[in-house]
């Protein structure tokens, strides 16, 4: 995948459509015929466009959502089926697009809004934005702040992976496993609340330091105990024929543009933590998980391994962290500049392009991992059974709020 330009989204502009491409280096925008993307000021986020219709005798078309009991977040799906088989599927995630306004905001308001861009992934997005601002300001990297952000992100990753595996267990009617996994996640959220002052890390990331004091002492042993409890649960889950049958061979896909656990589950060694522009992991013994079968089972195996790997990273980071600086709240300065940063969210590589003018956000563009994962789902679920929908969708850990625009 390195060096290859891939289409990561479609952006509407003046009635035309532009393909957004991104290689592994600097993001770029490629004009589709008749469109003008370079002149755009608002960088309205791209919305995946998948509109393959299926036609023919006995092809049945119906919609699911945007609000449905089985969906955690609102999203509409247009589904074409033949019997129980899904022929084609078109997601419409724009229903709940909040068109989050960040342009024109001061930096403090911008970071508060960006941590609410996708609440469950808040440390990733607020950390990315803070790192971008610090880089524009020319602040050198503070090692303790880097380690603090690594710890917060890895705790966030464990939380998200636990949620994904719990949802798969729920789909397979493994109710004891589902409840115990959800309980483990609750234990983790309580740890976050106690140590960071908010269950979703809101209000913690600041510029040049943390906006609130946090307690890192002994965090790795608490997280390690949660990972160990998870290990006991996983041993039982992988011995459950009902669970494995539902996810093995489900929503299989291999494409060079995939990111995150979906890519690693297809044997691609891609992880922004290796060479991302936001946080260094080179001294933290990062082990990149991988699997081969590219299906929902393989994605779960990658997530399972990443829970243990994150616990080990947290242990290493805690052993190295000293004193984390406090954030600068005032006098952030009349800074101007533009930079792209990327980070490995639990769903994979996410990219943020930040442009500041005189201490105010001029424009921001985010290309989230959920955009690629939604595309993975759309292609992978074809030819699967309707009852596989939950496993294909939940197994990719898609956050619909991430698919909304940032203005």
């Amino acid at each position: 995948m390195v060096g290859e330009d891939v289409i990561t989204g479609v952006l509407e502009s003046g009635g035309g459509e532009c393909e957004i491409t991104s290689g592994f280096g600097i993001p770029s925008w490629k004009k589709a015929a008749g469109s003008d993307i370079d002149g755009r000021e608002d960088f309205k986020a791209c919305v995946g466009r998948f509109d393959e219709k299926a036609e023919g005798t006995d092809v049945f078309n119906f919609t699911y959502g945007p609000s449905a009991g089985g969906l955690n977040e609102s999203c509409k799906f247009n589904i074409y089926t033949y019997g129980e088989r899904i022929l084609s599927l078109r997601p419409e995630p724009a229903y709940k697009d909040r068109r989050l306004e960040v342009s024109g905001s001061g930096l403090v308001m911008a970071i508060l809004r960006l941590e609410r861009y996708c609440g469950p992934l808040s440390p990733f997005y607020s950390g990315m934005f803070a790192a971008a601002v610090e880089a524009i300001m020319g602040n050198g990297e503070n090692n303790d702040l880097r380690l603090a952000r690594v710890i917060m992100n890895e705790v966030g990753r464990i939380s998200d992976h636990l949620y994904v595996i719990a949802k798969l267990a729920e789909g397979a009617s493994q109710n004891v496993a589902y409840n115990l996994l959800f309980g483990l996640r609750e234990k983790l959220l309580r740890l976050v609340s106690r140590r960071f002052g908010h269950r979703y890390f809101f209000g913690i990331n600041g510029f040049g330091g943390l906006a609130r004091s946090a307690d890192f002492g002994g965090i790795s042993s608490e997280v390690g105990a949660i990972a160990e409890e998870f290990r006991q649960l996983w041993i039982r889950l992988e011995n459950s024929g009902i669970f494995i049958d539902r996810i093995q061979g489900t929503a299989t896909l291999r494409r060079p543009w995939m990111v995150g656990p979906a890519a690693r589950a297809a044997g691609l060694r891609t992880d922004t933590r290796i060479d991302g522009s936001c946080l260094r992991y080179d001294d933290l013994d990062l082990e990149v998980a991988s699997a081969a079968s590219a299906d929902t089972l393989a994605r779960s195996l990658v997530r399972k391994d990443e829970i243990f790997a994150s616990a080990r990273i947290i242990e290493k980071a805690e052993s190295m962290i000293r004193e984390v600086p406090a954030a600068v709240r005032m006098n952030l300065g009349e800074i101007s500049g533009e930079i792209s940063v990327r980070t490995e969210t639990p769903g994979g590589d996410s990219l943020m392009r930040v442009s500041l003018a005189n201490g105010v956000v001029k424009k921001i563009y985010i290309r989230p991992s959920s955009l690629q994962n939604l595309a993975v789902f759309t292609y992978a679920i074809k030819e699967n059974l309707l009852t596989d929908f939950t496993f294909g969708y939940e197994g990719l850990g898609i956050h619909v709020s991430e698919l909304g625009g940032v203005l």
Partner: protein
Amino acid sequence: MKSWLTYGLMRKRLTTGFPSMEAEEVPLWTTTPVSTGTGEAHCPANAIKGTTVEMGRCISCGYCSPAFQPDGVPGTSIVRSTEKAFRKSFHIYLFDAGSCGSCNLEVKALGNPYYDMSRLGISFCATPKHADALIVVGVLADGMSDPLKRAVEALPSPKLIFALGACAISGGIIGKSISGIVDADIVVPGCPPNPFTILDALQRSRGVRL
């Protein structure tokens, strides 16, 4: 290997005694910030009015510390009307009008073994048609206006509408509140409100004395 059932039963009891007993581990910054009389507070959400905080606007950011400190009391909701018909069984439907995803997860957390809302006769349902209450989270995204109107119409009577979280109540720092479409019977502040606060609101909304 032990069966799932045996394995589950062998775990120690996780479920809270709340609301009959005091809540353990309330996430502080989702509760009401109270003036400490020290220093000046800068509230990014304009929630501070003199020495009090308008909780419907508060985004639980903690930026007002040390001039304000949270009181740690989970019962922050305002219950404008109650429906005693739901005292024995209460079916709730979560409606995402444009959330960041966290309010949704805090409502769903009520089903985990720590809160286990089923012990109180509360359960999720899959459609507003079968629900007693609609729990609306998030700001009102343009695309969700019509689905929200339809969900409210589909609710059988009697019914209760909850606006849950700063976004749904006031728009928070993100967008529009849901008030243009529906008036909430119960508002549950916080960004996001913690599960104890949500449980407290659900109980009070059906007239259960705590």
